[in-house]
């Protein structure tokens, strides 16, 4: 029972402790590593409980469900929490070196924990208005993390990020207002029942589309992604890795949640839109990446491209499709975060993020080349890494439903992703260093706190590949629960209905 609350209470406690340790950055740094490890353990405990005894529910203040606020952890939520925990621990380790004293002195760590609390809250809540509140907690923290440091590019990126995300929140809130006036409830389980009984399917579909746009902006799907490549490359790499691992994925999580629990009145219409948007998102993301020379911007476009794959599984709306989305989520978060962390090390060792300015890293730093190659090939989908199995599962789910067009698009985009990764390889590692390249700086790059997280993320990617069978089995179990909203409803409302 109380295991559901832990992923919220731990970050909350950490915020308070970090504020007490305001003047001792060292304590804050250690607190971050220890605290996020505790979060990971709590998430694992929750996952184990959910796996053993089904959906875990807590009614806050003992107000019975649909009146109070409900926290629900089904298998999908629990898996997402575990992923959050892993990203948090590794980014916390990377931040030991990757975040400078100045940023820590201005409150990096309290904001880091606030972001984690918002993300965990969004994964756990069973109330749509409460989801809005958690989104705002997460956004507020991310706004400040984005601007913290106050460099020119950061401020400019933050302006775009803040305005577009506030617009998305505004749409989310108005959709929730209209939803309440239609269904008269905000509890998602209760909504799931009542939306089925509403007599005007057109109105429900309209609300569904409002949510699609609101969450679509957060998840950076086509054609709502423009804020992402304009802002994600501006903060320090540790922050970008955290954002790429968690923020857009909360958008995808919310899309999955509302389109498997609430808006099922017109699946043929709404989920086809999701599928088409998924296809466009993949293509636009990877094509956008082709033109880039800044490693971080290039990787930012790949975030968008990979979101397309996640949408594809949701758009297929079958157990296999959703299972591959969940599996792919684990894969892409690990691979993406690893690539961003490696980009940070490349910057330290090579002296620049700009591929045109650096080169010859393979000859000087072969270990870095290996560190880059594992997640890069995984992202492109080469066996035996996790990306291959994620894409295989998606393709098989697509073929099973006869959606040949999206399967073809996803395979073509895979090839282009490989091209893009080859570009980084050729430019940064293979080609000789340009004449006046920034001085190579080996000791600055080889710090255990920087290398270890990137290495572990890469190993997770390899591990997910070799343990694809049990991992996919877990994802399939989670997808099975998602495909039966009645289970969720019964767990939340229990005896009320």
């Amino acid at each position, binding site marked *: 029972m109380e295991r559901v609350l832990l992923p919220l209470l731990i970050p909350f406690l950490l915020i308070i402790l970090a504020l007490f340790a305001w003047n001792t950055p060292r304590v804050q740094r250690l607190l971050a590593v220890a605290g996020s490890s505790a979060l990971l353990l709590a998430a694992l405990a929750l996952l184990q409980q959910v796996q053993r005894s089904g959906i875990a529910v807590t009614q806050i203040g003992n107000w019975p469900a649909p009146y109070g606020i409900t926290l629900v952890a089904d298998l999908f939520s629990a898996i997402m929490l575990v992923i959050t925990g892993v990203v948090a621990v590794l980014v916390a380790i990377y931040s030991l070196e990757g975040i400078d004293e100045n940023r820590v002195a201005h409150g990096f760590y309290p904001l880091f924990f606030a972001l984690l609390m918002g993300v965990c809250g969004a994964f756990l809540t069973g109330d749509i208005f409460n989801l809005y509140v958690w989104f705002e907690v997460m956004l*507020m923290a991310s706004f400040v993390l984005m601007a913290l440091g106050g460099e020119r590019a950061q*401020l400019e990126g*933050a*302006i775009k990020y803040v*305005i577009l995300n506030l617009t998305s*929140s505004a749409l989310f809130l108005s959709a929730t207002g209209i939803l309440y*006036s239609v269904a008269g409830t905000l509890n998602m389980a209760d909504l799931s029942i009542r939306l089925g009984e509403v007599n005007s399917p057109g109105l429900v579909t309209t609300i569904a589309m409002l949510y699609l746009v609101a969450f679509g902006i957060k998840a950076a799907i086509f054609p709502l992604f423009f804020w992402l490549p304009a802002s994600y490359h501006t903060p320090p790499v540790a922050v970008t890795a955290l954002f790429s691992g968690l923020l857009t994925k909360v958008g995808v999580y919310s899309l999955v949640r509302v389109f498997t629990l609430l808006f099922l009145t017109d699946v043929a219409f709404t989920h086809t839109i999701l599928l088409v948007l998924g296809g466009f998102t993949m293509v636009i993301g990877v094509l956008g990446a082709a033109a880039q020379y800044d490693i971080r911007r290039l990787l930012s476009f790949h975030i968008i491209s990979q979101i397309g794959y996640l949408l594809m599984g949701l758009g297929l709306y079958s157990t296999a499709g959703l299972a591959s989305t969940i599996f792919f989520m684990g894969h892409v978060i690990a691979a993406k975060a690893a690539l961003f962390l490696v980009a940070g090390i490349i910057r330290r060792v090579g002296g620049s993020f*700009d591929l045109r300015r650096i080169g010859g890293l393979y000859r000087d730093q072969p270990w870095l080349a290996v560190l880059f190659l594992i997640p890069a090939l995984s992202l492109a989908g080469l066996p035996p890494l996790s990306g291959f199995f994620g894409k295989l599962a998606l393709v098989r789910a697509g073929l099973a439903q006869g959606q040949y067009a999206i399967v073809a698009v996803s395979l073509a985009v895979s090839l282009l992703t490989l091209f893009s990764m080859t570009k980084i390889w050729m430019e940064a590692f293979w080609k000789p260093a340009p004449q006046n390249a920034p001085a190579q700086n080996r000791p600055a790059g080889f710090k255990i706190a920087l290398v270890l997280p990137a290495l572990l993320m890469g190993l997770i990617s390899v591990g997910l590949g070799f343990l694809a069978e049990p991992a996919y089995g877990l994802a399939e179990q989670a997808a099975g629960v998602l495909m039966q909203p009645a289970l969720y409803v019964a767990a939340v409302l229990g005896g009320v209905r």
Partner: protein
Amino acid sequence: MIFLLAIVIGVLFTVGLYMMMRRSLTKVLIGLMLLGQAINLLIFTAGRLQRASPPLIPLGGDQISQSADPLPQALILTAIVISFGVTAFALVLARQTYTVLGTNDMNELRDTDIIPKYHPEIPPEEEEGY
């Protein structure tokens, strides 16, 4: 009354979105604030409009007969608090951006959108804390 409010909400949405499409950063923020007000009114209307009867169950009775739904009003209260915090942050961010970048024109804020030019001779701008 609902008809009147519907028009007010529509006008607020229109004005808000129009302001958001202006080039001045200040006007964009004003647009966001107006949008927030429009949404608050929208939620308010969603809770039905009733005059002069509080949402209390009369003594001896067991249900409310004629009154507005109090829940949306609680939601609005939450939304107002959140938008207050967010707006305060956005204003400070806008001011800081103006101080550092020296411009208030959204059209000139495109350094993070374009691919930076490559001049081998000119060293890149120094960044910290990567």
